[in-house]
C-alpha cells in the first residue's frame, strides 16, 4: 500500500517535471525567437531581386514605347550648361565639347516631337589620357533612368605601333609583341552594355516635350562632337541585300588577310599573339616565337572590335571565311557581328555563331550555303565585334536569379547563423513566410534558363547541367524546408558556381589566324596541314627547345656599356620592362640592360658571395634590402643624387630602406589596406561607413546581430608563419602615436602602455568580438555573408574582375581611424612593398653611376607610369600595378572617386625601419598573438614575455654588426 502510494507520488513528480521541461522547451525557443524576430523585422530585407532599377526591368517599359520615326541630332558644342574646366576644345580638326576629370558635366536640352524609345549614338573623339576606356554617366531630367546609365563606357582605338610593317625581333629572332598605341579619329558608337547581358543598344524612353540630358565623366576626358537619338536600326535581310546588288559585275579574286595584322582595335589587350600548336597556323617557325594570331581569351568582352584594312582588286561577290579557334569556354559558342565599312551589311551578319571546338576550324559566313558579300574595288574595312548573341537573355536571367538567391541566403543566415545547429528546427517557413514562394520562383526561372541554353547550344553541356543542379537543390528545399539549414554550405557553394557561370557566360573568346575573301567557287582555307609536315614541325620544335635560353630577355643592340639586372617576376612583366628599356633608357643613355628572371629573394646573397651577382636587383621584398645592406652587400644610393625623386614618394615608402644614415633601395611598389564593404547590405541594415574604431565596433555589432560577419584576417593560408593581425596591431599602435623602436633603433618600445594597449585591442577582436581567424574573403564577400573587411587595396581589381554578380554592390573606403584632438581622424597603418637595389658588384665593375641612373629611371614617374599602363594592357586590370611613385599612380586608370579614397589613405600610411634582427619581431608578435588568442596567458604578459626575446635578439645582432661600439665612440 505504502509502496504504491510512493510510486504514485513519484509518478506525479515525474509528470510535473516532464511537463515543466516540455513547457520550458516550448517557451524558451519561442522567447528567443520572439527577440530574434523583433530584431529581424527592423532589418527585414526583401527576398526578391534588388535589381529593380536595372535595365532588365527598364527594358520592358521601353519596349512598350514606339520606335521613333526620326532621329534627333544634337550638336554637342551647343550645350545648355556645363561645369567643366575647358568645355570647348579642338581635336582631330573639329571642335568638341569636352568634359574632363573631377566629375565635370554637360547638359543639353532636347525637344522631343513624339514619345519614343531612343537609342543614343555618340560621335566622339578619343582624347589622350591614361589609356583606359572612357566612362561616364547619362541622366535624363536629373535622374538615371536605370542603374547601368550610371556607368557607361566607350572604347579608345588602338593599333600596333609599327603599323603595317614586320614585327620587331629580339636578339634570338623572336617576334616582340608590338607596343599598342592609340590611333585616334572620330568614332561613332551606340551606348550599349559591355557585360553581355543585352544584345541591343540601351533604349532611353523620352516623352514628347523638352528634356535635359546630362553627361558626367567618371574618368578620362570625353570629347563629344555629336549626339544622335536614334530609332533601333535593323539591317536588311539577305534577300533584300542580294536584290540591291543584282546584275552588278562579278569578277571577284581571292584576298587573304593575316589576322594578326589588324588595322585597329578597341582594346589595348587585342595585340598579336603566338600559336605554336600546329604548323597550319601561318606564318610559323618551329624554333622562334612568331606572332601569327590575334584575340583569344583577351577578345571576350562584348563590344570589343577588331578592324582589318583590305584592298579589293575587283568588284564582285565575295565569300568570307576565317580560320579560328574557340576552345576556351567548353560547350559554349562565341558570337561576332560583322561590319563592312562600319555597317552591318545584312541581318545574318549579326551574331555569327562560332561554336566551341577543341581545334582550329574554318568558319564561313553562312556555312554550307555561303552568304556572299558584294564589294566594289578599292579599300574597305572589315570588322568583327564580340556580341552577346542569344546568350544575353540567359546571362541577364542568371544574374537576376543569383541576386535573388544571394538575398535569400542572407535572409536565411540572419535567422540561423552561418553554421546552424543541425539539431534545432529553425522553423524557416514561419520565420520567413516569403521564403517558399521566392524559392519556387527561382527554381522556375532557372528551369526556363536551362531549357533556353539547351535550345541554343543543342546538347546543353556543362553550363546547363550546372543550372540543373541548382534546380534540384532548390526543389529539395521547397519540398523539405528543414533541410535548408543542414545544407546551407551546399547552398552557398552552388551560388558560387552560379557566380562563376556568370563569368563564363559573359565571355565571347575567339582566336583568329587568318581571313579570306574569295569567289564562291575558289578553294577555301584549310584548318589542318598534312600529317608529315605536322610531324617534321614537332620534331624541329623539340630540337630547338634545347637551343634557346628562356631566362634571358632583352639585350639591346647599339649600347656602349651594359649592366646585368635580376628581376624576380613573371615573363610578361620582364618583357615589358625590357621593352621600356629598349625604347626609353638605352637610346637616352647608351647603356644596355641585360635582364634575367631570377628569384632575388633567396639567391642574391649567395650569388654575391660566389661573385656571380648582378649589378642591380629589382622587386626585392621590403625586408631584404636592409638585411643585405648591413652585411655590406649593397651600395648606398643617396650619394648618387636622389634629391629630385625624393618628393615623388611618401616618406613611408622610403622608411623600410633606411639603414644608419643611408638609403639602400628605391621604392618600386607600395601596397596598403582599405576597408571593403557591401553597400547593399549596409543599406539594408541601416549602417554607414565607419570613420572611427567606435563606429567600426558599432557597425560590427549590428552586422553580427544579423548573423553576418566582419573579416579581419589573422591567418593567411599562403603564409601561416606570419600573422596578418600584426597590421591591426600596427594600426592601433600608430594611430595612438606609438611606434616600434626607440630613437636609435636599439630596442623596442613594446613595454610602453601604448603598445600593450594596442596589442590587447588586437587580441580582443578575436577573443571578445569573436571574429573568424581564417576565411576566404573573396567567396564570403560575394555571397554577402561577410559584409565588411579590411583588405589590401589590390583586392579591388580582383573583385571588379572576378565577381560580376555583385558589380555595383560594394565599395572601398579608407580604414577606420582614431580621432585626434583637433577632431581630424588618424588613419595610420603600415604598408608592404618592394624596392630595387644596387649591389657591390656594380662598384667593382665601375658601372655604379650608370646603375644608379638606371634605378632612378626605373622608379621614376615616366617609367613606372608607362609600366603600369602597359602591364594593364598586357595582363588586364586584374593585374593592376601598385607603384610607390605618387605621380605614376596618377596615370593608372582608377576612377576619380577610387583615386581619392586611395590617396586619402595613402597620405596617412606610415612605416618603421627595418633593423638587424627584424625577422624576430614578426615571429614573436605572431606567437604572442596566437598564444593569447588560444587562451594561453594574458595579452600583456605574453607581449612582455616575447618582447624580451625580441630585444635580446636585437642586442645580439647589434653586437654582431658592431653597432653599439660606434655609438659609444
Amino acid at each position: 500500500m505504502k509502496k504504491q502510494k510512493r510510486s504514485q507520488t513519484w509518478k506525479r513528480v515525474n509528470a510535473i517535471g516532464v511537463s515543466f521541461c516540455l513547457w520550458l522547451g516550448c517557451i524558451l525557443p519561442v522567447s528567443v525567437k520572439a527577440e530574434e524576430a523583433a530584431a529581424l523585422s527592423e532589418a527585414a530585407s526583401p527576398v526578391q531581386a534588388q535589381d529593380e532599377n536595372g535595365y532588365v526591368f527598364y527594358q520592358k517599359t521601353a519596349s512598350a514605347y514606339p520606335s521613333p520615326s526620326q532621329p534627333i541630332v544634337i550638336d554637342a558644342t551647343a550645350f545648355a550648361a556645363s561645369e567643366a574646366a575647358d568645355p570647348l576644345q579642338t581635336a582631330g580638326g573639329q571642335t568638341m565639347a569636352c568634359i574632363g576629370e573631377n566629375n565635370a558635366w554637360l547638359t543639353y536640352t532636347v525637344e522631343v516631337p513624339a514619345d519614343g524609345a531612343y537609342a543614343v549614338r555618340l560621335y566622339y573623339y578619343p582624347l589622350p589620357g591614361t589609356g583606359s576606356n572612357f566612362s561616364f554617366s547619362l541622366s535624363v531630367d536629373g535622374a538615371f533612368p536605370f542603374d547601368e546609365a550610371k556607368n557607361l563606357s566607350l572604347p579608345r582605338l588602338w593599333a600596333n605601333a609599327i603599323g603595317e610593317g614586320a614585327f620587331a625581333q629580339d636578339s634570338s629572332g623572336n617576334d616582340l609583341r608590338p607596343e599598342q598605341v592609340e590611333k585616334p579619329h572620330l568614332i561613332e558608337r551606340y551606348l550599349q552594355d559591355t557585360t553581355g547581358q543585352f544584345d541591343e543598344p540601351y533604349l532611353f524612353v523620352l516623352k514628347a516635350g523638352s528634356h535635359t540630358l546630362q553627361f558626367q565623366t567618371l574618368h578620362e576626358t570625353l570629347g563629344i562632337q555629336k549626339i544622335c537619338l536614334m530609332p533601333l536600326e535593323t539591317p536588311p535581310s539577305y534577300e533584300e541585300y542580294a536584290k540591291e546588288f543584282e546584275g552588278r559585275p562579278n569578277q571577284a579574286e581571292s584576298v587573304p588577310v593575316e589576322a594578326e595584322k589588324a588595322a585597329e582595335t578597341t582594346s589595348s589587350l587585342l595585340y598579336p599573339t603566338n600559336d605554336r600548336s600546329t604548323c597550319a597556323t601561318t606564318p610559323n617557325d618551329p624554333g622562334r616565337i612568331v606572332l601569327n594570331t590575334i584575340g583569344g581569351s583577351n577578345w571576350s568582352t562584348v563590344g570589343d572590335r577588331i578592324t582589318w584594312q583590305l584592298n579589293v582588286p575587283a568588284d564582285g561577290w565575295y565569300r568570307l571565311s576565317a580560320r579560328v579557334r574557340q576552345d576556351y569556354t567548353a560547350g559554349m559558342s562565341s558570337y561576332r557581328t560583322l561590319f563592312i565599312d562600319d555597317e552591318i551589311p545584312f541581318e545574318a551578319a549579326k551574331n555569327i555563331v562560332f561554336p566551341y571546338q577543341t581545334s582550329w576550324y574554318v568558319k564561313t559566313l553562312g556555312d554550307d550555303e555561303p552568304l556572299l558579300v558584294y564589294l566594289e574595288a578599292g579599300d574597305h574595312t572589315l570588322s568583327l565585334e564580340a556580341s552577346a548573341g542569344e546568350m544575353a537573355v540567359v546571362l541577364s536571367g542568371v544574374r537576376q536569379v543569383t541576386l535573388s538567391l544571394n538575398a535569400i541566403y542572407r535572409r536565411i543566415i540572419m535567422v540561423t547563423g552561418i553554421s546552424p545547429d543541425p539539431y534545432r528546427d529553425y522553423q524557416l517557413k514561419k520565420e520567413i513566410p516569403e521564403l517558399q514562394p521566392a524559392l519556387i520562383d527561382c527554381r522556375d526561372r532557372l528551369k526556363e534558363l536551362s531549357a533556353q541554353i539547351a535550345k541554343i547550344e543543342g546538347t546543353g553541356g556543362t553550363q546547363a547541367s550546372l543550372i540543373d543542379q541548382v534546380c534540384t537543390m532548390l526543389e529539395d528545399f521547397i519540398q523539405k524546408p528543414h533541410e535548408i539549414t543542414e545544407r546551407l554550405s551546399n547552398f552557398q557553394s552552388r551560388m558560387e558556381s552560379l557566380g562563376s557561370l556568370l563569368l563564363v557566360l559573359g565571355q565571347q573568346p575567339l582566336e583568329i589566324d587568318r581571313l579570306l575573301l574569295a569567289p564562291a567557287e575558289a578553294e577555301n582555307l584549310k584548318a589542318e596541314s598534312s600529317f608529315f609536315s605536322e610531324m617534321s614541325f614537332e620534331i624541329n620544335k623539340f630540337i630547338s627547345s634545347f637551343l634557346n635560353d628562356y631566362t634571358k630577355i632583352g639585350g639591346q643592340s647599339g649600347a656602349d656599356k651594359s649592366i646585368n639586372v635580376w628581376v624576380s617576376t613573371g615573363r610578361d612583366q620582364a618583357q615589358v620592362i625590357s621593352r621600356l628599356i629598349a625604347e626609353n633608357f638605352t637610346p637616352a643613355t647608351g647603356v644596355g640592360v641585360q635582364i634575367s628572371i631570377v628569384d632575388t629573394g633567396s639567391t642574391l646573397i649567395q650569388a654575391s658571395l660566389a661573385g656571380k651577382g648582378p649589378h642591380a636587383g629589382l622587386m626585392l621584398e621590403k625586408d631584404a634590402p636592409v638585411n643585405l645592406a648591413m652585411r655590406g652587400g649593397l651600395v648606398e644610393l643617396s650619394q648618387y643624387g636622389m634629391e629630385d625623386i625624393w618628393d615623388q614618394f611618401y616618406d613611408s615608402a622610403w622608411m623600410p630602406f633606411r639603414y644608419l644614415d643611408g638609403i639602400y633601395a628605391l621604392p618600386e611598389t607600395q601596397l596598403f589596406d582599405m576597408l571593403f564593404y557591401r553597400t547593399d547590405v549596409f543599406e539594408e541594415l541601416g549602417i554607414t561607413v565607419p570613420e572611427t574604431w567606435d563606429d567600426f565596433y558599432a557597425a560590427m555589432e549590428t552586422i553580427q546581430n544579423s548573423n553576418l560577419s566582419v573579416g579581419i584576417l589573422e591567418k593567411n593560408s599562403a603564409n601561416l608563419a606570419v600573422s596578418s593581425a600584426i597590421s591591426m596591431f600596427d594600426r592601433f599602435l600608430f594611430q595612438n602615436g606609438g611606434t616600434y623602436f626607440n630613437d636609435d633603433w636599439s630596442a623596442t618600445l613594446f613595454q610602453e602602455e601604448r603598445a600593450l594597449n594596442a596589442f590587447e585591442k588586437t587580441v580582443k577582436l578575436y577573443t571578445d568580438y569573436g571574429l573568424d581567424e581564417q576565411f576566404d574573403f573573396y567567396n564570403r564577400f560575394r555571397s554577402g555573408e561577410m559584409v565588411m573587411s579590411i583588405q589590401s587595396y589590390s583586392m579591388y581589381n580582383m573583385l571588379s574582375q572576378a565577381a560580376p554578380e555583385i558589380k555595383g554592390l560594394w565599395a572601398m573606403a579608407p580604414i577606420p581611424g582614431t580621432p585626434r584632438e583637433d577632431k581630424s581622424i588618424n588613419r595610420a597603418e603600415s604598408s608592404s612593398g618592394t624596392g630595387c637595389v644596387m649591389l657591390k658588384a656594380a662598384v667593382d665593375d665601375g658601372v655604379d653611376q650608370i646603375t644608379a641612373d638606371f634605378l632612378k629611371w626605373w622608379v621614376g614617374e615616366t617609367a613606372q607610369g608607362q609600366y603600369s599602363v602597359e602591364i594593364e594592357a598586357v595582363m588586364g586590370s586584374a593585374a593592376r600595378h601598385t607603384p610607390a611613385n605618387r605621380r605614376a599612380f596618377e596615370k593608372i586608370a582608377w576612377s576619380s572617386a577610387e583615386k581619392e579614397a586611395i590617396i586619402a589613405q595613402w597620405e596617412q600610411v606610415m612605416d618603421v625601419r627595418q633593423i638587424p634582427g627584424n625577422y624576430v619581431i614578426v615571429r614573436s608578435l605572431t606567437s604572442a598573438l596566437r598564444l593569447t588568442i588560444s587562451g594561453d596567458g594574458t595579452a600583456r604578459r605574453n607581449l612582455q614575455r616575447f618582447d624580451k626575446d625580441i630585444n635580446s635578439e636585437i642586442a645580439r645582432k647589434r653586437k654582431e654588426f658592431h653597432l653599439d661600439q660606434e655609438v659609444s665612440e
Partner: protein
Amino acid sequence: MTVKAKSPLDQSDTLSKRIRAGTPFYVMMAPFFVLFFLFTIVPVLSSIVLSLTDFNMVEMPEWIGFDHYIRLFLEDDIFIKALMNTLLFAVITGPIGFILSFVMAWFINELGRKTRSFITLIMYSPTLAGNVYFIWLFIFSGDSKGLLNSMLIQTGLLRDPISWLTEETYSFAVVVVVIIWSSMGAGFLSLVAGFKALDKSYYEAAALDGVRNRWQELYYVTLPQMGSQLLFSAVMSISSAFAVGYQSRALTGFPSTNYSTHTILLHIIDYGSIRFEMGYASALAVVLFAMMLGTWFLITRVLRKFTSA
C-alpha cells in the same frame, strides 16, 4: 699439382701490389666515390670546421673555437625546444612508421599478386608524390569551412573552428599524423620484397617442429630470415625521423607558432638562411649529424642481436 686461382686481394701481397691488382674495382667505384666525396664528405668536414668560426656569408670566417657549442647547450632555449621536438618526432614516428611498414608488408604479403601490387602502389604513393602536403593544409585549415572543422561543426562536436596548424596544442599532433602518413617509403618497399624472398621450405620444417600459429611463425621463422631488410628499413625510418622539418615547415609555417613544431633541421635553416649565421648553423648540423650517427650504431646493435639469435 693444382694451380690455385689467385684472388687480386690476397692478403699476403704487398699493399702496392694489391692496389695495382684492384685497379678495375677502384675505377668502377670512382664515379660514385668522387660524387660521394664531393657532396657528402667535403660538406661534412667543412661544416665541422665552419662550426668553430663566426661566418656571416659575406665577410671572411673568424675563428672562435667552441663558443657556438657552449651557446648551443647553455644559452639557446629554442635549440633545446627543437632538440626535444626532434627527439619526440623521432621516438613517436620512427618506431610507429617502422612497425607500421612491417605490419602492412606482412598483410600485403597474404594478398594475391595483382591486389598486392595495387595496394603497395597506394601505400607508397605519398612518397612517390613527393611533398604533397597541400591536401593536409586543406583538411586541417583553420577556416570554419576547412574540411575537418566544417565536419566537426556540422556534427555538433565543435562550435568554433580550431586552428589546427597554428595552435600549439594541436600542431604537433597534426605533423605527427602527416609524417606517419608519408612513412611508407623505401623501407616499406624493401620489406615487401623481403617477404617475397622468404624460403617457403622453412615454414614446412617449422610446422613439423611444432610451430602452431602465425605469431610463432612470424617470430621464429620470418623475422630471423629478414634481418637485412629490417635493418635497412629501420635505418631509413630513423634517419628520416631525424630529418623531420620540411613537413612541419609546409604545414605549420616557418617558424611555427612559438616554435611548437620547430626541429633541429628547421633551426639550421633558420640560422643559415634567415639570420645568415653560417657558423652557428654548422654547429647545429654537426650536432644533428652526431645524433644520427649515434642512433644508427644503437639500431644496428639491437637488430643484429635480435636477428642473429
